[in-house]
């Protein structure tokens, strides 16, 4: 897997050592995660402001979210983080086939998450709990309950898009693993995808109590 100078095939020409390349990838991915935190941060800001202006409406509106489904989704996503970590753990140990198994499991958990969200969303569409001007549900006390649902759909929608993007990245990594491109010596793309996936889990860890568990 090395070229004439003993440089491994995966080492790009402008890096002098594999470690330098690996640490660079990691730093790059962490900076990217920083940008994602800032992106969602805007929505958390909107949430904080509208909740502070309408505390009772938020309480009343949130009761229409199914805590059981939300908690289930939380467990599902945490599990997917565990399986993602285990996929990387196994490739570190050279156990490619087990790693593949865990990558697939991660994808399954992600799909379950999206399925549950689909049911939640379609129920809301059905009863008219929609964002902004499309809101038609009566039955929540307080002014402007559509605001809660605007915030809910914006936050969970953006998060859902990131889940889909993560699934695409994990699928790509899965294909590469099946094609034996990774080894204990080089598995950086899997590790970086793992970091991204954990962030997706992290964001949900905050979304869940803020949206579903308003006390």
């Amino acid at each position, binding site marked *: 897997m*090395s070229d004439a100078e*003993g440089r*491994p095939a995966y080492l790009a020409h402008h890096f002098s050592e594999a470690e330098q390349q690996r*640490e660079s990838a*990691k*730093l790059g991915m962490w*900076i990217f*995660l*920083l940008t994602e935190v*800032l992106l969602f*941060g805007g929505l*958390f*800001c909107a949430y*904080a*402001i509208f909740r*502070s*202006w309408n*505390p*009772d*409406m938020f309480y*009343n509106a949130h*009761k*229409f979210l*199914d*805590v059981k489904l939300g*908690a289930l989704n939380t*467990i599902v996503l*945490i599990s997917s*983080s*565990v399986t*993602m*970590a*285990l996929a990387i*753990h196994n490739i*570190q*140990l050279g156990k490619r086939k087990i790693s593949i198994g865990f990558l697939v499991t991660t994808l399954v958990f992600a799909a379950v998450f999206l399925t549950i969200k689909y*049911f*939640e969303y379609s*129920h809301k569409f059905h*009863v008219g709990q929609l964002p902004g001007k499309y809101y*038609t549900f*009566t*039955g929540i*006390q307080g*002014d*402007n309950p*559509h605001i809660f649902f605007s915030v809910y759909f914006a936050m969970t929608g953006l998060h859902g898009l990131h889940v889909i993007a993560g699934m695409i990245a994990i699928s790509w990594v899965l294909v590469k693993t099946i094609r034996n491109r990774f080894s*204990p*010596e*080089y598995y950086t793309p899997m590790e970086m995808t*793992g*970091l991204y996936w*954990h*962030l997706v*889990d*992290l964001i949900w*860890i905050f979304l869940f*109590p803020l949206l579903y568990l*308003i*006390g």
Partner: protein
Amino acid sequence: MTTKSNAHAGHIVPLWVYLTVGGGLFILTGITVAVSFIPLGGWNVVVALGIATLKATLVALFFMHLLYDKKIFLVVFLLAILFVGIFIIFTMFDTMRRDDIYEGAGRPIKPNAAMYDRMQTAGDSTAVTHGEAHESTADTVGNEENTEH
């Protein structure tokens, strides 16, 4: 040939750490759900965010490897959180203090959007005002809508 720089010098987190952290996260999820049913007033959100932060810390330190890595990555992560914090706090310096000039400055002229006049509203929808800490009544309407179809 595998030179010293090519052999992966990375730390391999033991399996039991992942499983323990995963288990801990499940337990914390259960706790946060349970506590949300106990009425603590303003403290509910503090506890919920506190538990969420603890969960997030576990994910960051162990799953994302920050405990074992060089400090720079932790600095990057903390910087992100710091700047989101600045954004929220400074914006709320504005939004929470609109009323300072005179009473009612921060309030909308018409509390409920016009589209609600076209809908049949159930119950009294004009009594809620900003900032009034009011006991939440458990018996709000619409509970039959609460389960999945």
